[in-house]
């Protein structure tokens, strides 16, 4: 790109790049540990009932085996029931507010197929893997339920919806305007959309190395939130939080799967204590399908009504999501529906259906992508009925303020995203009539979608420390699952400290560092970035404090508003030649370093503004008319996200999300055999994620957007937004190409022939 919007920072390549391309970045399972033993989980093979007997003798006799731990000999641990209300017990900040974490190895109860029911620990990994197969389990089976559709008559409203001011408030039944608007609409579309279970399938497996020193526990754990794992282990083992040390410096992708501490760190710690050895526990790929949660199976009804001139008059969105027997997991399935388009009348209803499954968990653009798939497919269907260009239809129904809260947007550039996106994409070449464009044997279709994701911020702490050699470090316990937090924190730190980039490094991923917010829900850059910004400002102010009344300093007597910080130096605004460097100041004061730690929290901005990131996405698909073989020839994403800290990593974040969305649209489905309540394709050969050959021209760009309302950084999170509108844009393009409306993902070729 020749010109770069003013809000975009200078591109910086990843600071962890050299470590990653040389294989020297160590992920959780890769820390060399003396005397380490290897664990392997035993998983249930029924979906419901109880363990009648569990015979571990053969496994215990197998060569190299140290022992087997099951519910029969595991220590009783503390898995508190969470409750709705002010006295909420927090063992896991990300887990649902209703229910409790899977009480692993605490009883004979089987909640789902593939539930961890034991761990075998051996001298070598090969011995552990084999011995785990020797554990003989008999069960008393009870009837199970794994199909949402079969159980839909037992759907119930989530308890979370009853709570006031909960972050899950939007699962409560909602209605604005005329509840009968749909029946009065001139033109309507009323359809059902289905999204199957999807799994994150990050390339790195769930991994823990656990080690006890007396009553203190150290774990290397794959997690998106170091403090959450720390808190959870402290509560489960009933030890002080300070006695749990969690390290997670590099995370090999997670996409939501490592938001919660699942059973792995707990079971590894149980084993490490029992055998008085460090224990490494790594999930097998097949175990990843039940060791952590998944994007829940959802069925959604979206009914839209509009006037003949293309103004929305009614939106009805009912969502059914699956959850486990022991927790109520909800997600933002219906949130966007309330504000993405302007409609005076809107009804949403969220229901849960229990099943013998692991508790679902947020997966990249959780809720929003599922909800927007339904909503923006419906928008396309209605546009066809109205004979209005789908882009024009969306523009006509643009919401100029938040129709739910009535609040103004902190910023919103969706119209500009539409305009620039359409231009770059060549939307004008699209023909409304399906099956109008061809490329040889391929039908060519174009479709588009809007997308949105909340701009949120959580409390986070950071430390900035300036050294006497003029370098500095910014620190936090945050983990970096791939978006480039190592890099962005360095950039923000350098800016805050007014130091050259090469003088600043970042340190992350260790619970002994200041407590970070979660890397998830597109919040970390805003939360931690704000903390780093404030910590940097505080640290340099402390340096200035040293010289304000220092007769030896050329800055003696200056006030804060009389000086500028630049390039590691403090100088007078009025006479830049009068000043000195941080290094000189620290040396003169015989200080090795000076530091500031800041706890940063959101203010009241959420009560004044509606804060969201928006996206417009355009897809061109080619569908082999006879064989149904698909190809996404081009995909354009335009995004308004406030200040972009690092354009290079931010753009990759968007295109990477599009690749994930292409998977959701065309290939990804976790298939359950409901007869056994067991997943049949728990592997990467039959759970198809996109490969390189599936991906062609992806273009992503940021429109100019300045937002000083959201957080000190002015940056909106972008981890999810690139994913939100992909499957809807593609499904709409598939309709434009073929005339076939696919309402059940994924759009595999058998649905197109």
């Amino acid at each position, binding site marked *: 790109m020749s010109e770069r919007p003013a809000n975009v920072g200078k591109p910086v390549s990843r600071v962890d790049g050299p470590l990653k391309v040389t294989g020297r970045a160590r992920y959780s399972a890769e820390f060399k540990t003396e005397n380490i033993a290897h664990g392997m989980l035993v998983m249930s093979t029924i979906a419901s009932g109880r363990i009648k007997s569990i015979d571990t003798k053969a496994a215990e006799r197998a060569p190299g085996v140290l022992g087997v731990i099951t519910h029969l000999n595991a220590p009783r641990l503390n898995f508190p029931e969470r409750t709705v209300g002010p006295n909420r017990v927090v063992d896991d900040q990300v887990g649902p507010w209703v229910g409790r974490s899977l009480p692993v190895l605490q009883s004979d109860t089987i909640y789902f197929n593939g539930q961890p029911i034991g761990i075998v620990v051996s001298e070598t990994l090969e011995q552990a893997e084999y011995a785990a197969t020797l554990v003989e389990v008999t069960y008393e089976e009870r009837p199970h339920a794994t199909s949402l559709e079969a159980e839909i008559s037992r759907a119930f409203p989530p308890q979370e919806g009853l709570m006031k001011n909960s972050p899950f408030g939007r699962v409560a039944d909602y209605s604005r305007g005329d509840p009968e608007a749909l029946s009065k609409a001139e033109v309507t579309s009323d359809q059902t959309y289905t999204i199957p279970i999807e799994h994150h399938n990050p390339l790195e497996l769930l991994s823990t190395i656990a080690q006890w020193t007396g009553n203190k526990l150290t774990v290397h754990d794959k997690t998106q939130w170091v403090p959450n794992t720390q808190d959870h282990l402290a509560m489960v083992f009933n030890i002080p939080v300070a006695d749990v040390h969690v390290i997670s410096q590099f995370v090999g992708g997670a996409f939501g799967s490592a938001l919660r501490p699942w059973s792995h760190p707990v079971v590894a710690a149980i084993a490490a204590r029992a055998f008085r050895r460090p224990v490494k526990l790594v999930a097998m790929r097949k175990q990843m399908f039940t060791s952590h949660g998944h994007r829940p199976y959802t069925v959604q009804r979206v009914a839209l009504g509009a006037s003949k001139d293309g103004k929305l008059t009614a939106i009805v969105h009912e969502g059914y999501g699956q959850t486990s027997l022991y927790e109520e997991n909800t997600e933002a399935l219906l949130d966007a529906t309330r504000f993405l388009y302007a409609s005076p009348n809107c009804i949403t209803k969220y229901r849960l259906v229990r099943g013998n499954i692991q508790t679902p968990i947020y997966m990249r653009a959780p809720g929003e992508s599922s909800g927007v798939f339904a909503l923006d497919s419906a928008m396309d269907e209605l546009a066809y009925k109205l004979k209005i260009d789908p882009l024009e239809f969306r523009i006509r129904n643009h919401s100029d303020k938040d129709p739910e809260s009535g609040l103004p947007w902190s910023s919103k550039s969706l119209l500009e995203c539409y305009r620039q996106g359409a231009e770059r994409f060549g939307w004008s070449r699209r023909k409304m009539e399906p099956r109008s464009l061809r490329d040889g044997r391929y039908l060519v279709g174009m479709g588009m979608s809007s997308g949105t994701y909340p701009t949120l911020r959580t409390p986070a702490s950071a430390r900035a420390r300036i050294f006497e050699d003029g370098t500095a470090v910014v620190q936090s316990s945050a983990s970096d699952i791939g978006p480039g937090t190592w890099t962005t924190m360095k950039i923000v730190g350098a800016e805050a400290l007014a130091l050259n980039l090469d003088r600043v490094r970042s340190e992350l991923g260790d619970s002994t560092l200041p407590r970070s917010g979660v890397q998830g829900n597109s919040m970390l850059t805003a939360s931690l970035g704000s903390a780093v910004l404030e910590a940097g400002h505080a640290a340099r102010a402390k340096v200035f404090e040293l010289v304000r009344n220092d007769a030896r300093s050329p800055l003696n007597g200056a006030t804060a508003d009389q000086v500028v910080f630049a390039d590691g130096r403090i100088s007078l605004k009025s006479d830049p030649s009068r000043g000195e460097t941080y290094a000189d100041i620290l040396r003169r004061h015989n200080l090795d370093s000076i530091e500031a730690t800041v706890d940063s929290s959101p203010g009241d901005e959420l009560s004044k503004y509606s804060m969201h990131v928006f996206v417009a996405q355009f897809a061109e698909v080619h569908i082999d008319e006879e*064989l149904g073989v698909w190809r996404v020839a081009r995909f354009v994403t335009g995004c308004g996200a406030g200040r972009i800290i690092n354009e290079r990593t931010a753009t990759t974040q968007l295109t990477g999300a599009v690749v994930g969305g292409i998977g959701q649209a065309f290939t990804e489905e976790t298939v359950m055999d409901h007869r056994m309540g067991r997943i049949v394709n728990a592997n990467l050969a039959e759970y198809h994620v996109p490969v390189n050959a599936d991906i062609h021209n992806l273009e992503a760009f940021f429109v100019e957007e300045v937002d000083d309302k959201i957080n000190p950084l002015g940056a909106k999170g972008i981890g999810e937004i690139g994913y939100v509108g992909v499957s809807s844009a593609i499904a709409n393009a598939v309709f434009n190409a073929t005339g076939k409306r696919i309402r059940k993902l994924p759009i595999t070729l058998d649905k197109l*022939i």
Partner: protein
Amino acid sequence: MKPFAFTRASNSQTAIQAVIKDQAAKFIAGGTNLVDLMKEDVEQPNHLVDINRLALTRIEEHNGGLRLGALARNSDTANHRLVRERFPLVSQAILSGASAQLRNAATNGGNLMQRTRCYYFYDVAMPCNKRQPGSGCGALEGFNRMHAILGASTQCIAVHPSDMCVALMALDAVIQVEGPEGSRSIPFAEFHRLPGDTPQLDTNLKHGELITAIDLPAAASAFSAHSYYLKIRDRASYAFALVSIAAALEVQNGTIKQARLALGGVAHKPWRAPEAEAVLNGAPLNQETFRRAATAALKKAQGYKYNSFKVELGRRGIVRALTIAAGEGRTA
């Protein structure tokens, strides 16, 4: 993985002798499928005999055709100058399978010995007559999207996963085998089995018999100008076939002098379609002929709950593959 004894064999006779002593012994070469299955506890050999040092890697001219060493790697076979020139169908089929890494490790002999990718076969917690005779077929009334539409039995509806074998089936390859009782040749069509009541048996190879070579007959090079392997799958690469088609034509003055047609992803073995070949042989080279051939090939096809689409997909795929083959077998 269950413990096993391991020996390295230096020639085929010692390898065969080592395996023959133990019903639960197996040869191992590239290991890309066997090790995978051992990790799943589907295969539990007591003893692995490593045959990688055997001198069976050559690809050479033989009786006017080609002899492909059983231990030649799939990638070397696909890229061998003579294979590409005379039997491009074989190159295409191999290159459409798996990934470059797997093709570098997998051998020609091992490719023939691949076992089904059926979900129920792979999961020891599920019923499967192939893995555990008498335990039932999980797929028959389960999730059977990948499964057979031809030649299945009530015992098993699994499909053979190989691409290369579909091309070999079309070209009448012959498999050379060495065993405790000497050598024998097995016509390709007689190598793999239909499930019937013995789905646990994939092939007609006897225990201790070692594949030494695959012969591509001279006559099959007549198709080099007009052949094509079409693979239809759920993503553009690195996925098993839903349906695949090996089409080979010999064309003379706008007429099909002779034709070969085999299908993958549809049956327990690579599926030859003689009914379709009968339609094609001597017929004019046009779409109408191809459509009639496609109908003939799938006349007896029967779909199950999740895979009925394969019948129509197969028909369309046959027409497409024949159309491309009738051109010059080029995709672009």
